[in-house]
């Protein structure tokens, strides 16, 4: 059945159409109460109705995502590379980081609000902490699967530690890096949105919470649609990067 790429693309489109149609029809015919899930057209209608409000709050969310992304993914990938490049650092740091991974970070958010206030600072801090460790661990796991022979060879030819990272580890682990960015980016978006929902004065999460308090479901789902758009934008960018990397590596 699903063999050629075009067949698969058709199937994907069909699946998306079914989901969207279900979203529209099930609430409309009362299968799902509208208070829980408004129909797609109502959500889009709300998006249009409150467009000025959404547009006013979008920049704050985007800036928070961008800054957290740079901190969490930049920091997580760099530190992950460094830790992975030394067996001793790996043995020392990994158990600690794995335990840190298991801590439900949401409990930290109230503390961060105390430290950084209700503005962007606390959102950035929370999303960064939320995404940092998983990004780092994904990076380390990817680098660990790299053949030690390549690193040994580079060392035999006089590569310093930084040269080994730059010329061997980084190119060899580009696919992993993309996986790490994919995870880190998704977590940053979740982190920012959740933080805004829990306590904020602006941003999409803040709007979602406000509409929810007013029992305005279409308004809530309008905000969710915007978050989905951001997530998809991130995915599109990653796909592009992925294609570049594949070309670069050829095999």
């Amino acid at each position, binding site marked *: 059945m699903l063999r050629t790429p075009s067949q698969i693309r058709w199937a994907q489109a069909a699946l998306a159409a079914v989901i969207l149609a279900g979203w529209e029809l099930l609430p409309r015919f009362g299968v799902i109460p509208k208070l829980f899930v408004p129909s797609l057209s109502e959500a889009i209608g709300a998006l249009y109705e409150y467009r000025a409000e959404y547009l006013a709050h979008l920049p704050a969310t985007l800036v928070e995502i961008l800054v957290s992304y740079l901190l969490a993914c930049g920091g997580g990938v760099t530190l992950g590379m460094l830790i992975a490049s030394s067996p001793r650092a790996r043995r020392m740091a990994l158990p600690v980081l794995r335990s840190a991974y298991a801590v439900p970070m949401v409990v930290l958010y109230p503390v961060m609000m105390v430290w950084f206030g209700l503005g962007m600072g606390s959102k950035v801090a929370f999303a960064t902490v939320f995404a940092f460790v998983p990004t780092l661990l994904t990076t380390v796991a990817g680098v660990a699967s790299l053949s030690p022979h390549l690193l040994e060879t580079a*060392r035999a030819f006089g*590569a310093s530690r930084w040269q080994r990272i730059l010329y*061997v580890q980084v190119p060899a682990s580009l696919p992993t890096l993309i996986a790490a960015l994919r995870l880190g980016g998704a977590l940053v978006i979740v982190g920012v949105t959740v933080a805004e929902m829990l306590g904020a004065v602006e941003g999409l999460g803040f709007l979602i919470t406000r509409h929810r308090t007013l029992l305005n479901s279409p308004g809530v789902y309008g905000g969710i649609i915007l978050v989905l758009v951001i997530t998809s934008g991130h995915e599109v960018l990653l796909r592009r990067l992925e294609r570049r990397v594949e070309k670069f*590596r050829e*095999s």
Partner: protein
Amino acid sequence: MTQSAVSVRAVTQHFTVEGQSTVALDAIDLEIPPGQFVALVGPSGCGKSTLLSLVAGLRLPTGGTLLCNGEPIVGPVPQRIGMIFQEANLLPWLTALENVAFPLKLRGVPKRERLEAARAMLELTGLGNFADRLPHQLSGGMKQRVSIGRGLVQDPGVLLLDEPFAALDEQTRMVLGDEVLRIWARTGKTVMFVTHNLSEAVYLADRIIVFSARPGRIVDDVPVDLPRPRTFSMMSSERFGALKDRIWAHIRDADH
């Protein structure tokens, strides 16, 4: 007495893995004069690779000292000692040419200069026409030629080869063996060559060092008094067979 190209003096290497200590090398002494072609043979796990990694400066010995041209080896000195591994270990995203040029890149040699040097090496190893291929587009033998080119590109005085042809078929192995001999005769480098193949050892070397099973000790030091250039027909000569028998006797005794 001329100075040795490589001196190994009372070198001992222990490894401790999870509290269990193994002695990989036990008080090894070895003097290799410049230009000599030395083969190292011995049962699996006797420490041949360990010895090469010590000479390459990839690790420091538990005991004893190693010298290259009279100077202590305390880390990799790729301009003096070139290394060729069993697997070609090429960087898969670099072309053959860039792989050969890689050691020069690490030293900061300008691009044009290093690619020129690398091209000369590929010519020398017979791969001139494959400079722009990626490793996965090359056969096993070709990859190993690239790896030899990379080992030679800095013109080191000492060349270390750790079972370089073990993953190749018999014919390719013979051809590459002759290739290494040709390059060696032309450049006069000192060579340390680890192999499991006794015929290969006798065919290539001036001298064969035989190791015992763990802990690795030198049990015989066999001069190979066959004339050069070596030829295929020598392999069926009586002298060739006698040398092989002498080495085989040690390895058989070690491995019971």
